[in-house]
């Protein structure tokens, strides 16, 4: 449930439609710049109460990789 809401807000942040956002959605330095990275950190903290390293996050190539970072942070 929270994943769906999180993804909706992430789509908002990346300025795309929520339907277009899936694990394969590609991130680049244009749609995922330093402001977007910091906003994503805040979003992840709000929804999952974990912190994800900024550098790792900025190097994520797809939305799926962001979700992997969240899962890993939750396990730690």
């Amino acid at each position, binding site marked *: 449930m929270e994943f769906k809401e999180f993804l909706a807000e992430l789509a908002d942040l990346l300025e795309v439609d929520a339907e277009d956002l899936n694990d394969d959605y590609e991130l680049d*330095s244009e749609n995922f*710049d*330093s*402001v977007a*990275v*910091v*906003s994503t*950190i*805040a979003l992840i*903290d*709000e929804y999952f109460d974990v*912190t*994800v*390293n*900024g*550098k790792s*996050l*900025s190097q994520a190539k797809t939305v799926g990789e962001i979700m992997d970072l969240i899962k890993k942070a939750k396990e730690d």
Partner: protein
Amino acid sequence: MRNRAYIKDIASYLPAQKLTNDELIKDYPDWDVEKIYNKTGISTRAIAGKNECASDLAVAVAEKLFEKGICKREEVEFLILCTQSPDYYLPTTACIVQDRLKLPTTCGAFDINLGCSGYVYGLSIVKGMIESGIVSNVLLITSETYSKYLHPSDRSVRTIFGDGAAATFISSIESEEELIGPFVFGTDGSGADLLIVPAGGLRMPVSQETGIEQTFDDGAIRSPQNLFMDGAEIFNFTLKSVPSAVKELLKKSKMTIDDIDMYIFHQANAFMLETLRKKIKIPKEKFCVNNEEYGNTVSSTIPMAIELELEKNSIKKGDKLMLVGFGVGLSWAGTIIRYV
């Protein structure tokens, strides 16, 4: 009933030269300055002149304070200057300020080297000195010229930081309850590299090499002589440290979130503040955000914010304010003050 330290008056000073968002667009035309304003809440920052140093801002703000008429320079028994951009390694910049302000030579004076947590740390020292009977009247000045550390092509930090100074006169009054305090502190030196000017101190003295600029992935250009800030990791740090500091402080003072009338955090940027506000569940009307015309003036953001709120009449007698400073070091501190 005993003698308690309390904040008697505050004044602030901004250098004349301003850097607006419109000017930033001129330097960085491909940059979305609108988006940055929406994230940071900043539209103008003051920038110290070429020959304007921390002591100059300190003298200017103290004179402004004395002009207000509530505090007199002859009353000052101790001067504490908080800065990370001192005029010299030595002598102490506070000593230079004492002389220029013509404070009594019986005055004590020293600098403290802290950034965004500096004001709250400063208050803790002053409270200790006053309530232990060492002195009765202390002038605490925060004065910063971070702009001198920034590379002109490092747009993210140029957007955030502004120069400025604040002077706070702390005096003594008979009171049943504590007027400044309790305090919580925090230090985590493992984050030293997250906000740093690597060269120019003695660890890495200035040399030809330290002046060599590098271009980074995000387009920023800087040399080791420039300030570096890892925005994302600093953000992570504040999300972890500030909510628990607030919790600890409320516990220590036996209060609840609702007992506090206003929360004045270090005014880093609007986005970070809003994220913290939501996380700690502080109501919007009790949460101070007013960095728009100043930017991040480091240790002066909190006293400047208090002054602004007083001008807006949003603080009344007896109000309890929670102040929390956090940042470079990594260092953080929180306290509760009562408006007298």
